[in-house]
């Protein structure tokens, strides 16, 4: 839910509550006010009537309301002396409305020529249900007007006010730690936004420092490991030549050398990866992808024959790109190696060039791979422990450094990798 809508919902709730409570209070106040003024009116009527009685004793005979708004009935002296004035609401039948209507009424008692009477004066009341209904609708109208105007203000004014925020949000969404982007910028003088800009930039610079030091760590660590690994391998190889060695010992040492070799390859791949990511390959030249492919296939010719893998290369299009030659080789060679080493005896590899793409397809015992993680580091075929699981990561790192797209899909039982060189095609 958007910020604007959320604030609108809160405001709607709060207004609903405030206006609701306010209208209830207002309603009762209004009713009281009306009662007060009616009570004053009927009290006044009573006083006028009592004065009139002296001139016109026939009024004392009005035992019922009839057309008048009063009645006078004689009562006992005791009752009269104990009587206190009572104002109250009641319902009376009205002929014109043919319904019971609310009426305000005053009971009082008085003495006239030694006789005691009870007088009741009435006055019609505002119809309460009408009052409620009328005020309800005005309140609803007020409420709707308020909400609509707030929505409009929100959409036009607040959106404008929040614009720097959305702007920053967009910048953050597209920000990449590994690209050397400028600091985030907010064009606003609002102190909160300036503060936000500052906080975001601080966070980014911290993250970038951490990112860089992590990257450097990989590079430095693998660099520092080179010499110790060299010594381990060298010493073991010398030890292996010792005459005093038993056959089983020699075999064990050979196994350790093999493992050290794995460590070495892993280390070299990590070094290469960190160099690619650190953009240490700067020289760019026109590179023929076809040529690289041919060279590598020639290098694996005997292995392909040994594994009885059929390979077909469609050379009808020449794909020339502008990139670092070593990186081009790393990209293509890792894809070719991947296609060979995950293949089975008697399988096949097809390589295809289009104007913009290098496509390599291979058969394999493996089912469709998870395209989400195959390019991740150390994701490997569990059946082959000797592989470092970094080959495809290297291919992807090369692609990333040039903004190329590399895709995997599984189609007609062929694992297919496509590299789109659109961004760096060499001009004819």
């Amino acid at each position, binding site marked *: 839910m958007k910020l604007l809508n959320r604030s609108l919902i809160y405001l709607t709730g709060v207004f609903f509550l405030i206006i609701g409570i306010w209208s209830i209070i207002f309603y009762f106040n209004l009713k009281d006010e009306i009662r007060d003024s009616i009570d004053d009116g009927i009290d006044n009527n009573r006083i006028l009537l009592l004065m009139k009685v002296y001139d016109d004793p026939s009024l004392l005979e009005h035992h019922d309301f009839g057309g008048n708004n009063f009645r006078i009935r004689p009562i006992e002296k005791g009752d009269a002396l104990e009587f206190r004035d009572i104002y109250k609401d009641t319902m009376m039948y009205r002929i014109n409305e043919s319904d019971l209507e609310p009426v305000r009424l005053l009971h009082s008692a008085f003495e006239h020529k030694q006789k005691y009477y009870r007088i009741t004066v009435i006055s019609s009341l505002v119809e309460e249900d009408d009052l409620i209904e009328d005020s309800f609708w005005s309140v609803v109208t007020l409420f709707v007007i308020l909400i609509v105007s707030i929505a409009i203000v929100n959409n036009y004014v607040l959106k404008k006010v929040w614009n720097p925020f959305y702007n920053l949000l967009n910048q953050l969404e597209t920000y990449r730690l590994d690209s050397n982007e400028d600091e985030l910028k907010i064009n606003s003088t609002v102190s909160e936004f300036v503060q936000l800009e500052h906080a975001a930039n601080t966070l980014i610079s911290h993250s970038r420092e951490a990112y860089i030091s992590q990257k450097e760590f990989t590079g430095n660590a693998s660099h520092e490991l080179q010499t110790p690994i060299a*010594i381990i391998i060298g010493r073991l190889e010398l030890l292996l030549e010792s005459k005093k060695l038993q056959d089983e010992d020699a075999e064990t040492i*050979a196994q350790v050398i093999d493992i050290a070799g794995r460590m070495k390859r892993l280390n070299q791949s990590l070094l290469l990866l960190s160099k690619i990511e650190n953009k240490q390959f700067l020289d760019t030249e026109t590179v023929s992808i076809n040529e690289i492919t041919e060279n590598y296939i020639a290098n694996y010719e005997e292995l392909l024959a040994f594994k009885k893998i059929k390979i077909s290369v469609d050379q009808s299009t020449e794909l020339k790109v502008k990139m670092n030659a070593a990186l081009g080789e790393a990209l293509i060679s890792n894809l070719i190696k991947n296609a060979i080493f995950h293949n089975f005896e008697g399988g096949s590899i097809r390589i295809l060039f289009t104007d913009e793409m290098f496509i390599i397809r291979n058969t394999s015992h493996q089912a469709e791979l998870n395209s989400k993680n195959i390019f991740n580091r150390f994701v490997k075929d569990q059946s082959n422990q000797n592989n470092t699981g970094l080959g495809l990561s290297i291919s992807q790192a090369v692609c990333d450094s040039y903004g190329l797209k590399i895709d995997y899909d599984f189609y007609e039982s062929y694992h297919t990798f496509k590299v789109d060189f659109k961004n760096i095609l060499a001009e004819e």
Partner: protein
Amino acid sequence: MKILIIEDEQGLRDTIETSLLKEKYIVETAIDYHSAIDKISIYEYDCILLDIMLPDGNGLDLLQELKNQNKSENVIIISAKDALDDKVNGLALGADDYLAKPFHIAELNARIKAVLRRKKLEGKDCIEVGNVSLEILERSLKINDEFVHLNKKEFDILNYFLSNKNRLLTKTALAEYVWGDHIDQADNFDFIYYQIKNLRKKLEEHQAQINIETVYGVGYKLVEK
């Protein structure tokens, strides 16, 4: 043959020295830039192994110094810094070869032998053992003056064996040599085994005076009959 090892890391220096002594070379060592400068200005060496990163100076400066004295053509750079720059700069300064750490001893042997051969033989680069002669530049094998066809990998393997005569070659070192740098999957021992089997057959057919012995579970060794 006199070889100078310029390497500050003692473990590696000792290993290389021991291995080179087995090849009957005269070996001298220098542990830093200054002792190296002293040695190269006084003595002549047939081959110099040079570590680029020294505690008190850059190996490339040393190489420049050697170039000034016209002695840079027999230098093999050894570096943990596998950066292409170093390789390019080093070779531009006249170094003969570049070997990235970590390397197999057999690999270093092969490189040193190549340097020494190139230094000795004018234009003709060839390894001869008994009646076997391997032409490096032409990539061809002659046994009893008769050409024997080898595929690329068989040639590489034989070349590696001949440069490491009488030395034990582990399967790992062989696989890495055959597949070159940055090979992810050097574990294709079946393939290596198959190539060696073919190679043996060819050597036998032509009555070569060399033999590739199997050291069970470890590797192989080329011996002269």
